[in-house]
Structure formats: C-alpha cells, structure tokens
C-alpha cells in the first residue's frame, strides 16, 4: 500500500490541429459524433449554432475558431465534446477525442510565460506525460463571452 496517495487529475484528451488539449473528466458530459448543427444568427463567429442533444438544445463552439486556429473540414474523427461548467452546457467541436488519462499533479506546470506573442488566459497549465505535451484548458475562461 502506498503511504501517500498522489493526487491525480483524470482528463479527457482531445486534438486540435497538431496539439493535444485536456479537460477534467468531471466537466465532460459526453462525447458525440458530429450531427446537424442549426446556425444561430448574430452570435460570435466561433459559435457554430445549436444541436439537438437528446431533446436539449445545446450550443456548439468550434474550438479551432475559438482559439484562432485555421478552420478545417469535419472528418470521420471529428467529435463534439459536451461539457458542463456551472449551469452552462455547451459542446466543443474538436478534431478528435484521443484518450482518457490520469495526470499526476506534480507533472502539471504553469503555462510558459511566452508562447509566441499572443497572451491567452484560457490555458490552465501544461502537463508533460512521456513524450506528450497536454495543454490543460480553463473552461470557464474558454466560455467567457467577451472576444
């Protein structure tokens, strides 16, 4: 038996372009395949519209557009990750949902101060596991409306 239980964070890992991102599994409701999205006029560009998620109308955010990554057509791997933060439930379009991982708390490091020039506040930290680099997202910041 281990004397001290190491704190671990269970995350869902998904892919956007070449990078891997992670969000805590507690915030994830489900992972869905892409389905018909109804466009909602006059909303921010990254809001793709709404879908019918088992009877609940759920807004969908294209994370590529939200993060300023160039758009790409949907593929077989494209998924919608439904997350819930506080009372807000939305879906994120991601390139692929890759993995469920346990990240040891000690492997999480704060964001390197300078990543290129753009300062982003929605990155919670970075975790290095083996050779993979996971970017931990702060969903509350991702869902903030200004921008």
């Amino acid at each position, binding site marked *: 038996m281990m004397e001290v239980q190491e704190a671990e964070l269970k995350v869902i890992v998904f892919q956007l372009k070449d990078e891997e991102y992670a969000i805590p599994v507690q915030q994830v409701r489900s992972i869905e395949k892409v389905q018909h999205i109804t466009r*909602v*006029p*006059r909303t921010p560009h990254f809001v793709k519209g709404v879908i019918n998620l088992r*009877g609940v*109308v759920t*807004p969908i955010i294209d994370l590529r557009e939200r993060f300023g990554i160039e758009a790409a057509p949907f593929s077989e791997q494209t998924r919608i990750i439904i997350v819930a933060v506080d009372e807000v439930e939305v879906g994120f379009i991601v390139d692929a949902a890759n993995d469920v991982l346990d990240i040891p708390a000690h492997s999480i490091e704060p964001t390197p101060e300078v990543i290129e020039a753009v300062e982003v506040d929605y990155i919670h930290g970075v975790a290095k596991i083996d050779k993979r680099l996971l970017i931990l997202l702060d969903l509350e910041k991702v869902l903030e409306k200004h921008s």
Partner: protein
Amino acid sequence: MDMSQYLEVFVDESKEHLQTINEQLLELEKSPDDISIVNEIFRSAHTLKGMSATMGFEDLANLTHKMENVLDGIRNHKITVTPEILDVVFRAVDDLEAMVNSIAEGGDGKRDVEEVVEQLKRIEQGESPVATKTERTTHSSNATLTQTYGEFEYNVLQQSKEQGFFTYEIRVKLRADCLLKAARVFMVFETLNQVGEVIKSNPPAELLEEEQFDQEFIVTVVSKESEDELYRRVMKVSELEEVTVTRFDIDELKGTNEHDISESEVHQQKMEVAATLQKEEKKGKKHEQETSTTHKQTTAVNKTIRVNIERLDILMNLFEELVIDRGRLEQISRELNNPELHETVERMSRISSDLQNIILNMRMVPVETVFNRFPRMVRQLARDLGKKIHLEIIGAETELDRTVIDEIGDPLVHLLRNAIDHGIETPDVRRAKGKPEEGTVKLKAYHSGNHVFIEIEDDGAGINREKVLQKAINKGIISKQNAANLTDKQVYELIFASGFSTADKISDISGRGVGLDVVKSTIESLGGSVTIDSQEGVGSIFSIQLPLTLSIISVMLVEIQDEKYAIPLSSIIETAMIKKEDILHAHNQKVIDFRGKVVPLLFLRDIFEVPVSKEESDTLSVVIVRKGEKMAGLVVDSFIGQQEVVLKSLGNYLTSVFAISGATILGDGQVALIIDCNALIK
C-alpha cells in the same frame, strides 16, 4: 442528527399547514360557532408545532404553541371568536409564514414576535381567567368504573337524541389472558363506529391505546341500533370476557352527574366527535373514521409525491426524442412492409401518444394554488379599507401549466387589489346607490379551447369614461382630438397605459405608480391578453386569456434559404404573396400597401445573415406580424406550414440572441429557431 435532508419536506409541509390554517381561519370567521373548523386549524397548528420542534426551530414552535392556546380556548368555548381575535391570529400566522420563508431561504427562522405573543397571551387570559392547562385526572384505582359526563358531552348526547340516536353505555371486560389489549380496544371501537359513534370512554382513549387500564373499560356510544345488535357486534371481537350494554336516557343524567370538565384532553376529543356527528347528519350518515379511537391526524390524504419540475422537463425531453424515433420507425416499417413489424410499430405509436398526454398533464397544476391565498388577502384589504367584500372563487380546479401558474400570481393580485380599491364602493355609498352593503368580487377560471380564461368581476362603481379620458389627456397619453373618437373599450384600454392611475387619492392598496401596465405586459409576456368590460355603476370585468401551456406553442414554419425558422402564430396576422413590383420605397425602407395600411418589410435573410444559395423568385412570401398596433411584413422564401412545437430555451450560454426567443426540435430531429417578432418591430 442531521436534519438538513428533511428541510425541504419540512418547508413544503409547513407551508401547506399554514395555508390550511389560513383557509380555515377565514371559514371560522364566517361561521364562528363551527367547532370542526377550529379542530381543523388546531390539527394543522399542532402538526406544525411538532414538526418545527423536531427540526429545532424553537421560535416557530413557540409561537405556534401560543396560537394553539388561543385556539384551544376557542374550542373550549372559553374564548369567543371576534374579528379582533382573528386579526391577531392572522398576524401570528403571518409571522409563522415569514419564519418558514426565512428557513426556506436558509435562514434560522428567528423573528421578533414579542408583540404578537403578548397579544395572544392577552386573548388567552383576558377571556379565560383560569389557566386552561390540563389537570390530568388519575383514573387508576377506581374499583368500580363509572361514566361521568361534562356539559359538552351532555350537549352532544342531547343533540344525538334529538336526531334519533339512542345512547348506550357499554361495559367491556377483556379476558385476563388477553395479550394485545390495545388491539382489542381498537377493534371494539371500530365495531362501534360502524354502527354509531363513540362519545366517551373511561379510561380515555389515549390511555386505552397505551394499555393503561386493567381489564375493564366503559364506552358511551350513540347509535340507532338496538341493544342486542350492539351486543352481538361487540361480542364478535375475540378475547372479551364480558360485555354489558345498557341503554340509558340522558335526561335522567341531568343533575345526577356532576359536570366533569377537568379532563380537557378528553374534552377536546369529544368536540371532534360532536363535529363529526353534525357533519354526518348532513352528509346522510356517511361514516368517517375520524373518531376518538385514534387521536392522530386523519385529514384526507391525497396520494401524491413531489417531483422536481426539472425532472419533468427531462422526462419530456426524452419523450420527444422517442417521438422522433417513432417517426423514423414508422417510416422504416412502411418501407419494409412487414405486417408484424407494422403491427408492433402501430401499437407503440398508440401507447406513446397516450404517454404524451400524460406527460403534458403532469405539468398541469390547478389554479387553486394561486387562488388560495386570495381570500386572506381580500379579507385584509377589506378591513383596511373599511369595505365589506365577499370574494367568490369559481373554477379553482382549472388546470394551467406550472410555468404559467408561477407567473400569474402577481398580475392577479394587482387586479384584485384594483377591483377592491377602485371598484367596490364603501358600504354607505353602496347603500345610497341601493346596492347591498357587501360588494362581491368574483374570481373565475375556466377552460375554453386551447386557452384558460381568468375573470375578475366586481359589482362596484365601474369605469367612468370621462374621468379616464380626462386623466389620459392630462397625462399626455392621448390627444384631445383622438379622445372623442374612442370607443368605450378603447377608453378602458387606456388604464393599462403606463403612467396611468385613476384613483383620486393614491392609496397604499393599488395605484402606487406601478400601474396596470405592468399587469398587461406580464400577461402579454406569457402569450396572453387582458381585456376590460365595464358598466358604470354596475361593475367591471377584467378578463385574462392565457395559453394552456407555455411549453407548447403553435407556430408557422418558414424556410429562408436552407434554414428553417418558426414564427409564433400568436403574432401572425396573415400570410401573403407579394409581387416584387408591388414593393414601395419610403425613406430607404421597403414597404407594401397591405389592406390600405403601409407595412414595412423586413428581409429575414438579411437580418439573420442567412448564407444565400438559392435565387430569389419574383414573388415574395410575406408573413404579416404585429406587435400591439404596429405591423411588419417578414419576408421569407417559403411557408412550410403550421405546427405545434415544444418551446425550448437556447440554454445558459446563448442568453440574448437578437430576435430569437427560443428553439424547438422538429420531426426530423433538427433544431429550428423561434423568431421573436416583438424584437423585430420597433
């Protein structure tokens, strides 16, 4: 013990009990001599006291206790019911309500109730110089049991006799080896209650229940059956050694028995029985189990459970999914043409449509839940204003969607206050006009088609056309020129205009700035409407029309390029096909001439920035919508048709989307947005 998990139940039940107390107090005011009402109140108060003590809300328990003492005095005829006393009791109930609300909001339920407590005490003492606390008599070692009767019991017996009942004393001796004495006692009481009514027992019922007696007890029973019949019935209970039934005439009792009024507990029980007896006579001898055998609360219990409305929403959502899948199944079954599959799918369809009705009905709540607080309010208002008002409630059982119920309370309060304050005249004015002193306010709810109507009718002064017009002109709501041309109805509508108040003096009751315009806008936001009818000197009727439910609305589905939108039918006047050359230009605005009126055109394709992939045709499909008096023509590509849809919100993330009030899920599982016409028309 952690009580927090019971808190919700406690709050709900407390509210229910307080509501009962309120209702019954009003009843009591109408018929102060009806002891059964006091008992009803007492029961609720007693339960409330017990619950709050258990939950550790001592202030609540204390105040309830003080109130209980007064009620006790009333039912023991030590205190006579007067409006003043009821005022104090009502105030106590108000305080109790405030406490329960505070608890519900996470507070500690504490409140300064000194004054009310003091008043309650004064009532309690002022009317009954002797402390009414129970002096329990000891029954233990009487070698020979005898039955004595208090004044009250005597009266009950007297009454029963007048109603053709005989009085019997039944002496029952249990066998020495009887194991379940209480059970036997219960069975004896049960048996007797089937043919009559147990008036009194010695030892009293509680002691019997607790098996605190030797082997023998006496019960006094009133019944229409003969001695032999009673004997035969009682003897059917096993483990009895001896039963003697003696018939006696209560007139002989008078004077021989000294009045025993000390056993107040027993005393109270008898009151209940008396009340039950009276009731029974009225109801044609229908038996009620509410007798002295059990001292517990026996109010009619509806078998209901509380369900969080969110769960119902989830149920409904899932069900809609099912309906969509059902549609697909039906399609597949038609294509495959397999009789067995066909049959199964058809069965499923039928069952699911029954299910749909049930689910929709589950969200329906009788308007009673809103109405039941009004009698109390009206009483208070009438007293405050020195008016005499009779509130008549009709159709309280009419059901409405829960969401509508939640919203409709305030507007109704406002309209009722209005009717009482401005409508009903003071008693002397009414007398001078040859009307009965007591004014009547009728609150009536009923279903009609897909709507529920709620009417508030008063037989008061009615609306004075000139006065309204004068006021409207003074306030700049209309111009003098326009005023003359208005119909009576249009004049009445003016009182809904914002910034309007017709009362000469601004009272506390209604007309304090927030006028009837708030009522109108609330009702309209619920998809309803309100109209007034009035006759001067005779009275007014405010009539509210509401949709049965907010969750299902009728819409017109339209197509704009490849996108589908829904327009609520309630805002649509009509649809039209317009030729391109009929479009006129005014101030950079495209307009059409629609039945003699100039109606601006709104191109939804531009407003909603719809990606264009199809060519425009030469004729435009236009949906004419309105907001109040204003109109607009919404230009769409084609009409799909009319449909009933389930209204859904866009969720918490997309909170304020321009001109979109919500969404719905279509038969093919896709989401269609619902257009908010009010936002489009400025």
